[in-house]
């Protein structure tokens, strides 16, 4: 009797649950081809001038097209630009725009570019990422409030002709112009709605997909923009982007067919995934490097020999193969292999020496620098509490301690925000960090060593010869000569070792084999417009 009473309660609860959970939106057209993509985290903004993450790039790049865009392999191809001319000195690029319109039918004009670039330059926009556009003449001065906004190097000659002036020749300009900071904005919409222009009800786009809905921490829903200039070649009708902070949970959803793609998985699960779903696992080189910064303004780290000693004693193979797994490669330089316009071949002098010999050499170097049992080398290694960093820290502590018992590293862990606050304020000794390039060119790594890049040059490395070499390389018109000069500069950086390269990043995607048109590439950008579902294609053929 008791049981029935309680059972009733349970049943009533259950049916209430069922009732409460009904309702909601209306179904979309069931014939639509829908792609579900797991995408790192919640986009902080979908305004191209306020976004700053790679995951925002995936969504924004589906909605907007700049002068250039990426092909399925991630290489820059003309987007809004139909053709272009470059002046002899390489400083003036004239773009002829294709005929295209915003999703409301208003034509995209050269003025939309001018408007957008002036908006991102204006300090009141608060664009965190504007420094990417500093190669454009006058851009840096304008963002610092030192020059007029309308003096930046972009001019609409007529509705379909755009002239861009640069600070220095930039052979990487096509790659840079695929980045969302350089996208045109619909002037008529932004002026009408202000900061709210990016809401689903207001936004107009020139790319393959239009923003339909955006639920915080739930999904971003994009639908086909039928006005897109290449709409005939687009297969997917709807794409949902889900924030997938928990990679393990996202992996389950991919395996269960709930997501077609997730753009990460935990490295420790590699063997498991290779066994369970081998044809989903996609690992490819990626243009990023994990490196430690040493504070060169401190006395103990002002000597390149000391810095080299600490750099050479880290067993990168162990970190890559045992800790990170998933194809990470040991790094002995800052620029990863495969980066465009770059010969490569730079590495630390000791990179081929076995680790035991390197430790002995490190000990000798430190002793020569005056350290020893009476003068121990004590320092703090600060790392972020996120991702694999807490697993790397004890390994490097162990590696450093193995040089001699008077090398005494101390581990300090911090929240990400505190970590970067300390780095900015020069309040650290050795700190972990990483860099993922925004466009595919060696300069996007090497600028990190320029003294004018402080505070992003966290180690405060100050080598005028390096700065001159990088500047001279950027003025060079011949891409091969430029690449060689860049490599020479990088060799200086690696020899001085203000930063300790640890490993080169890899991209780790889980992709359902039903998805076609996905190509692994070094920029790890995969626009939805190139993809399709083979099941849908078969369905259409029948």
């Amino acid at each position, binding site marked *: *009797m*008791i*049981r029935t*009473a*309680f059972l009733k*309660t*349970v049943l009533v*609860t259950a049916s209430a*649950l*069922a009732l*409460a*959970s009904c*309702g*909601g*939106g*209306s*179904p*979309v057209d069931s014939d639509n081809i829908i792609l579900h993509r797991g995408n790192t985290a919640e986009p*902080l903004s*979908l*305004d191209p001038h306020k976004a*700053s993450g790679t995951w925002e790039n995936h969504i924004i790049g589906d909605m907007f097209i700049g002068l250039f865009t990426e092909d399925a392999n991630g290489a820059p191809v003309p987007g809004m630009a139909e053709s272009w001319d470059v002046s002899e000195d390489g400083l003036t690029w004239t773009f002829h725009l294709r005929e295209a319109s915003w999703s409301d039918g208003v034509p995209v004009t050269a003025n939309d570019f001018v408007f957008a670039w002036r908006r991102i330059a204006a*300090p*009141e926009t*608060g664009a*965190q*990422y*504007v*420094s990417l556009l500093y190669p454009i003449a006058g851009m840096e001065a304008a*963002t*610092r*409030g030192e020059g007029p906004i309308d003096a930046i190097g972009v001019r609409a000659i007529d509705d379909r002709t755009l002239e861009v002036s640069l600070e220095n020749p930039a052979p990487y300009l096509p790659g840079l112009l695929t980045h969302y900071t350089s996208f045109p904005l619909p002037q008529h919409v932004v002026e009408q709605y202000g900061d709210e222009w990016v809401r689903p009800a207001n936004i107009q786009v020139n790319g393959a997909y239009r923003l339909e809905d955006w*639920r*915080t*921490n*739930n*999904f971003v*829903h994009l639908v086909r923009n039928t006005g897109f200039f290449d709409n005939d070649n687009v297969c997917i009708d709807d794409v*949902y982007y*889900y*924030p997938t*902070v*928990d990679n*393990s*949970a*996202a992996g*389950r*959803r991919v395996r*269960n067919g*709930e997501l077609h793609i997730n753009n990460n998985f935990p490295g420790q699960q590699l063997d498991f995934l290779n066994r369970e779903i081998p044809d989903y696992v996609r690992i490819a080189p990626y243009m990023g490097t994990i490196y430690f910064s040493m504070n060169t303004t401190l006395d103990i780290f002002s000597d390149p020999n000391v810095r080299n000693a600490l750099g050479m004693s880290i067993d990168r193979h162990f970190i890559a193969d045992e800790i990170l797994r998933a194809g990470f490669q040991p790094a002995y330089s800052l620029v990863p292999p495969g980066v465009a316009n770059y010969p490569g071949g730079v590495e630390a002098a000791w990179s081929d020496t076995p680790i035991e010999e390197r430790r002995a050499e490190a000990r000798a170097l430190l002793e020569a620098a005056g350290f020893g049992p009476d003068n121990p080398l004590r320092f703090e290694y600060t790392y972020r509490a996120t991702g694999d960093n807490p697993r790397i820290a004890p390994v490097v502590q162990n590696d450093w301690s193995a040089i001699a018992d008077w090398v005494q590293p101390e581990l300090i862990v911090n*929240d*990400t*925000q*505190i970590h*970067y*606050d300390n780095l*900015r304020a020069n309040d650290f000794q050795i700190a972990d*960090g990483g860099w993922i390039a925004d466009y595919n060119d060696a300069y996007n790594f090497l600028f990190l060593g320029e003294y004018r890049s402080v*505070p*992003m040059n966290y180690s405060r490395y100050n080598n005028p010869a390096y700065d001159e070499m990088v500047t001279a390389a950027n003025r060079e018109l011949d891409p091969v000569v430029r690449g060689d000069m860049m490599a020479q500069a990088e060799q200086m950086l690696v020899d001085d070792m203000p930063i300790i390269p640890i490993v080169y990043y890899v991209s780790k995607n889980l992709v359902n084999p039903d998805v076609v048109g996905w190509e692994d590439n070094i920029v790890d950008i995969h626009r939805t417009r190139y993809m399709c579902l083979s099941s849908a294609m078969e369905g259409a053929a029948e």
Partner: protein
Amino acid sequence: MFGFVIRRIGVAIPTILVIITVAFFMMRAAPGGPFDLERPMPEETRQTILANYGLDQPLWRQYVNYMGDLMQGDLGPSLKLRDKRVSEIIAEGFPVSATIGIFSMALAIALGSLLGSIAALRQNTSGDFSIMTFAMVGISIPPFVMGPILALVFGLYLGWVPTGGLDPRYGMTPDRLILPIITLALPQIAIIARLMRASMIEVIRSNYIRTARAKGLSATAVIFKHALRSAILPLVSYLGPASAAVLSGSLVIERVFQLPGIGKHFVDAALQRDYTVVMGVVIIYASLIILLNLLADLLYGVLNPKVKYD
């Protein structure tokens, strides 16, 4: 009783104000700010953004401004989710968290007290032992372990339900909510079952139950009319802490099952120093806990005639 409620609300308002004030200054005392990013922005841009959000003002003035806006019901813009306002974020996330929380609590109370009563009435039998073993397991396994296990078994291997997320078209469908609700409810079912068992055993041994039996009342009448009413009292006083546990448990559940509730914001926003979102969520949580404790106290009085509200 009416006076009691008024007095409690009179205490609750200053309590919430104190919580808001403490949270406000604790957040600001934490090192690092919302705009300390991996990629530092130009100093001019940084200053402009700080000024846009009033973060360049002295701390006391920021506090006065915040409280002023709050009194007008304005929680401000999110500092990190730059296209959204805090009120929108909470309006989107709260229904999800609330649905999961309410159904977990209901499930925990229903199933917990049922199991606890059965165990008490069948004391020291195999049924009692198996329920108590289950309770021990439920208390010991944390949700971040139980969640993935349930998702693996019922989602991936059996294929009965999806492993995570909400349905993009229909939102909160039962198949998407059942695992999170069970995961969140399990530890509470276990605790409530143990509480209920202990209290029921005590009650059925008391004199007035013996008297009731001696009078010749049926077993059902004894249990329902007399025993249950007293036995449930410790459970009612546990409801306040239980709801707090369910609220904090939802932080984990929402992450494991990739649900868009407000629990996730609580953690993420605190780590990213999104001051306004943290404050908004703190206000919601504090008000909820105070309200639920008040409800538990009132319910206690309804069930226990010895309690007087004066």
